[in-house]
């Protein structure tokens, strides 16, 4: 099919409202700035941490360690079906209760003195408890706020979150997360990485197309053409602290390989069979502040979340969510190929992100620059910095009030 795409115009005007100022480089390496972000953003914002398909039955749990908070969190489906979160710490003397990353449990039992906690976090029994100077009610597991949207599990480390998850996401993002194929997912593939790079620097790589032709000359070849030589998107959207973009459809991708010619029709078959086509979110990318994005496509899908570890180290988790189990050899092969090719592209980004961090660490650069088609990166900085500034003002006001 040949469609005239010569009229393609990049959506540069859609980012004009973000301004044109250079961006302080400090925000991408400075430990003091990161500490403010950690407190202002990560310790009190809803963060994606898993998917309900990991907690299918009562007693199913996952453990997630969040390095920036030095926290280990247990998320468990109770006997009543409710998903709850707790700090993975015995209230006796702090011992971590679960060493497994996931599993099934009837209770969480501390290995040290056998304190026994129910799936609702209540202390059910503890040997010789009469000798303690407290009550069982006082010794329930420390709760962590948990909520779900579109199958995605979010946690908030603020004991009293200022906003509900739905207030935080806003109507638009809630509606889209509930529409994308991942909302119906029953299983997923996953690959992860740790990287010597700031969380924003890492994340920014995945929200601009400008680098595609240089870093992905082979794997990204279908995403740019002479009409759109950088593979820029068709549209941007800004939704409070969140963002979206609609990828440009390359109508004439002349780069499929023999194996891809076998696989792609299988994927289209899967999407049709599972009722995922037509997909209104196809080609849509939703960036949920601070570090999560997900791609709506039923056939070339993935989600990606970046967690900070320090000012200059981060951890990324990439998942490909699938609806229903594979039922045939062809289906199985197509899923293997999707995993391999998605990772094929992401692997190519790691070294260049690390090189960016090595260049910034000396402080030689006062500023970095974002062009009009790196507007999503600019938006992430402006939103994060706005929250940091508000936090500083809040701390100063609290200090003066004392």
């Amino acid at each position, binding site marked *: 099919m040949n469609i005239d795409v010569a009229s393609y115009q990049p959506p540069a005007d859609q980012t004009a409202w973000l301004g044109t100022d250079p961006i302080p480089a400090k925000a991408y390496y400075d430990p003091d700035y990161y500490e403010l972000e950690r407190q202002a953003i990560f310790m009190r914002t809803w963060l994606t941490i898993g998917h309900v398909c990991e907690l299918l039955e009562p007693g199913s749990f996952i453990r997630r360690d969040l390095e920036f908070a030095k926290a280990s969190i247990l998320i468990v489906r109770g006997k009543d079906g409710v998903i709850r979160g707790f700090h993975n710490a015995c209230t006796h003397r702090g011992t971590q209760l679960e060493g497994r990353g996931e599993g099934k449990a009837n209770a969480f039992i501390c290995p040290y003195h056998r304190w026994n906690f129910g799936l609702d976090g209540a202390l059910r029994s503890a040997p010789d408890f009469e000798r303690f100077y407290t009550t069982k009610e006082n010794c329930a597991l420390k709760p962590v706020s948990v909520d779900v949207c579109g199958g995605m599990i979010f946690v908030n480390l603020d004991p009293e979150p200022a906003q509900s998850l739905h207030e935080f996401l806003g109507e638009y993002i809630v509606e889209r997360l509930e529409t994308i194929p991942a909302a119906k997912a029953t*299983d*997923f*593939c*996953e*690959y*992860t*990485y740790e*990287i010597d790079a700031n969380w924003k620097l890492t994340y920014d790589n995945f929200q601009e197309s400008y680098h595609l032709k240089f870093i992905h000359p*082979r*794997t990204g070849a279908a995403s740019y053409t002479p009409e759109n030589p950088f593979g820029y998107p068709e549209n941007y959207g800004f939704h409070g602290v969140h963002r979206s973009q609609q990828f440009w459809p390359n109508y004439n991708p002349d780069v499929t*390989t*023999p*194996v*891809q010619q*076998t*696989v792609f029709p299988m994927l289209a078959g899967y999407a049709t069979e599972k009722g995922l086509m037509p997909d209104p979110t196809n080609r849509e990318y939703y960036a949920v502040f601070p570090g999560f994005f997900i791609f709506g496509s039923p056939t070339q899908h993935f989600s990606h979340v970046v967690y900070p570890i320090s000012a200059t180290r981060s951890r990324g988790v*990439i998942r490909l969510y*699938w609806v229903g*189990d*594979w*039922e*045939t*050899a*062809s*289906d*199985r*092969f197509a*899923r*293997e*190929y999707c*995993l*391999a*090719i998605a*990772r*094929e592209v*992401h*692997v*190519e980004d*790691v*070294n260049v992100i690390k090189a960016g961090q090595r260049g910034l660490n000396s402080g030689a650069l006062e500023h970095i620059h974002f062009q009009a088609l790196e507007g999503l990166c600019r938006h992430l900085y402006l939103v994060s910095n706005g929250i940091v500034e508000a936090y500083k003002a809040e701390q100063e006001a609290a200090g003066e009030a004392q």
Partner: protein
Amino acid sequence: MTEPVQLPEGFATLEPFVARWSLRTSAERDRARGDSTEEEREAFYAAAQPLLEAALSYLDGFPARQLGEKEQRLMDLVLSLAHVSLAVEVQKEMEEQHARQRNDMPITRSVTDPA
């Protein structure tokens, strides 16, 4: 002495690749790609790619989770082609550099792995 037949009838040309490429998990298949030489990848691709559709349509005739031993070997072998084809069809001379980078991003879960 003839070697025992490891694969279903019709796939005899893939027999020499079973030991190297018929692997149970996505992570093992990825590792085999990384540990292989260009010659090994090209030989496997040259033999397996023309039989990919035939192998899948043959295997589609069986209950996917209850394959016989020979069918299971063929399935696991074909799944390696997903990885090796990326080296041969896409990366080409850039494969060696790409392989080093892949170690930074381990596969931690795959829906295609045995339950």
